[in-house]
């Protein structure tokens, strides 16, 4: 999909905002393919704990990654009742399991700042930067890192 300059700028600065353990986070709209409500998720035995399982996205099998697990947050109870953001990375789609999906925000230029040096891992590993909103801070997540944490 090609867009002309102004639209591309908007897309570039647009983020899907979501909640993870009361922290507001954002994923770039350009990497988001879908937002899913509660879905039946098939557990995958022997998979690492941050893999919630796999789900059927309109005939396509998508692996679900539990972002709470990946970010070292306390489990949110039942994975089946939570929402997912489907992100694409290197041609593969993954469903990122989150507590809630909020809205799409276009962030003003200059509102973004690099990670504060004191941001602890694993947040520092998965965060691209922090954005100062009026009332609260938004952590900008890196979808590629979330999907392949070992890739640098």
């Amino acid at each position, binding site marked *: 999909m090609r867009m002309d300059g102004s639209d591309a700028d908007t897309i570039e600065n647009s983020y899907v905002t979501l909640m993870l353990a009361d922290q507001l986070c954002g994923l770039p709209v350009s990497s988001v393919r879908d937002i899913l409500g509660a879905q*039946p998720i*098939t*557990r*995958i*035995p*022997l*998979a690492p704990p941050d*893999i919630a*399982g*796999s*789900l*059927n996205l309109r*005939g396509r*099998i*998508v*692996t679900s990654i539990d972002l709470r697990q990946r970010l070292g947050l306390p489990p949110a109870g039942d994975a089946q009742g939570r929402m997912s953001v489907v992100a694409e990375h290197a041609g*593969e789609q*993954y469903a990122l399991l989150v507590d809630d999906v909020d809205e799409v925000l276009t962030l003003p230029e200059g509102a973004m700042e690099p990670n504060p040096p004191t941001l602890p891992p694993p947040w520092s590993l998965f965060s691209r930067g922090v954005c100062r909103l009026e009332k609260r801070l938004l952590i900008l997540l890196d979808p590629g890192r979330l*999907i*392949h944490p070992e890739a640098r």
Partner: protein
Amino acid sequence: MDELLADFLAETAEGLAELDTALLRLERAPGDTATLALVFRLVHTIKGTCGFLGLPRLERVAHAAENLLGEVRDGTRVADGPLIGAVLAAADRMRAIVDGLARDGTEPAGDDGALVGQIEALRAGAPAPAPTPPTPAPAAAPAPPAPVAVEAPAAPVVVEPQAAAPAADQAVDPQVAGQTIRVAVEVLDHLMTLAGELVLTRNQLLQVARSQAGHDFAVPLQRLSQITSDLQEGVMKTRMQPIGGAWSKLPRLVRDLSQELGKPIELVMQGAATELDRQVLELIRDPLTHMVRNCADHAIEPPDERRAAGKPAVGKIRLTAVHEGGHIIVQIADDGRGLPVERIRAKAAALGFATAAELAAMSEAEIIRFIFRAGFSTAQEVTAVSGRGVGMDVVKTNIERIGGAIDVRSEAGRGTSFTIKIPLTLAIVAALVVQAGGERFAIPQIGVLELVRVGPGSENKVELIHDTKVLRLRDRLLPLADLTDLLQLPPADSEDRFVVVAQVGGALLGLIVDRVFDTEEIVVKPIAPILRHLSVFGGNTILGDGSVIMILDPNGIARAVGLAGAEERPEEAAHAEVLDMERSALLLMRAGGEGLMAVPLRLVARLEQVARGDVERSAGGPVTQYRGRLMKLITLAPRPADPAEWPAHSPVLVFARGRRIAGLVVDEIIDVVQDQLNVQLGAAGPGLLGSAVIDGRATDLLDVGYHLSAAIAGWFDDEHEQASARLLLVGGGRVAGLVPVLAAAGYGVATANDEAGALRLRDGGAMFDAVLVDRPDESDGFIRALRDAGAWRGLPLIALVGRVPAARLGQMRAAGWTDCVPGGDRALLADSLASCLSATVAA
């Protein structure tokens, strides 16, 4: 018409059409080097290919045109009007010849001297000083008339809705190319994926519809369902290609090898039209080539050696392919010297694949399977042809990767045959849906041999040797993997469970599951890259109800439970399992003393308890009656001659070889451990191999072969007469359960799905010692077909019958059946086979 020729015609017709437009373009822009290169290449391709196929007229015209174009390419001449005209005239002539070829299958008669003369004259009058090269140019040496294959282009598949060969009634038709369309493989793959998705969606829809009674969708849904199935089948067909495509290079290869090695070799190919999925085809191309190369290089002897052995000087390699159920069976057989069993045995010992005692206890069939082990190559010197380090292990790995299996049989001086079983397609497979620990899984049905119910309500139960679960399955101990344990799932609440008996490579493995649902056709989808390390799964799929389930890979499970490296096939195996040689499963026991002793578990056929009262005295020592036969009991330590003084019960390890059995009486069975078999001290005495530290304790390793051959003369000699009897079992899935029974009795077993399949085998030259037919047809058509003519006329033919009136039995015998046996009565079957086969030997 020859398939090669048909392909050539289609390609050439396309090429000529392209040539016309390119020539016209060149005429308008004589300096266009890209177009010139295209024109030159098109003519060159036609010339080159018809040289292969032995088409002298076409070749001569193409050659003349190519020479002329060569001068343009070399810059000594410009592509002016007369030149273009001459090449176009040549193109027209070629088209006429191709049309004649398509009509009659041979080049039409005719003289092209005038046309070629014109072209040559044009060249002679060249403004450039370039001398005319003598004709024919060296590049166009007379083509060998051998039936040489042309390699089909690798990327595009030729889709042939109809055979490309025109029917005889077709008039001169310049449209040879119109009957086939070249389609990029990606398009077909995409269509296949879409068809798979459609099937899944259809299944979902059907499931929803079933839950709503009395709706209006029933009829259109039925129609949709039918069309979806047809579509899927149609798309599958577009990807099907004759296996001959993977063979096309072989005649040439064999011809070249034959000259290079100075051995006359004949290559016979049967069933080249057998179709399979192109993806599978691509994957088996290299293994097949490698194996044929091996046959020519190693197996076939030089002609003088063959003559000395009383064989025809010309060696023969036979390649056959047949459909069987959802599989294709490919066989590569030669009539060469056979595999050098002793050299393989020595090499296996040298490489440390097994201990000398284990090797001594193995049958020839087991020994020759070492050629499939990684790092094995027996070629004494590296020849130019093979022996470049890529061995049969690579072949085996490649074949197993696509869900196939490979086996080998060999007979010294008579030849070797490799049998490869491969699935027709990789995209859609039949799978058994099972449940373990509350989750559902799919198991590809290709490897599933049978289902056994275990638990309190069943005669079969899972037994423990210490912590190792095993199942007594007829005459074997079947190693088990409990899916709930393996996958770390919550244990089942019910004791009623099932064992899915799966074939893994050559060994058997039982998977314990909680429930078994139905079989489903599933579309295998690859697992996400971040989960590829989970080797117990072979993929995932979406079921009809829309849920995602994981597909289990029995090979991966076998590796996870340490059963890898199992090279044995149940057909000939006297023992149920072969565990990884590097980490052998060892049975620890005590016999005559406090010290521990160990025996490799795979050598033990069964574990039994023998009661004191069942032991009898005979001249040769104690014996007991075991399954209707007398079994000799071997005691390691001196025991009282009178069995009455023995303990109330004695554990006995039962060993079986062919149809011979013997029991080794021990005091106590302690455990089964997985450990490295690392013999540390020399033999401490006769009957011992040495000592090893097993599980942290010093343990004597028992030399089973020593004790068995000391107790029973000829223990190792009997395998030829017994095990080499080959049976054909006709009846597909209904008789699958008999295969392991017969194999355990020492027979080689092949199966055919139905009577037609059996006849195909016969006509393909397969030979057996007896044929067993499950519930033969009432009309006696099959038995007549066998008895009236053909190589199987004199074979023992045994009918496995259900409940049949006595009068019918009489009729059947009169029709030619050697014997009629109730299918369920295995003892009776064994007797019948023994008597039928011994009668043949006597005859």
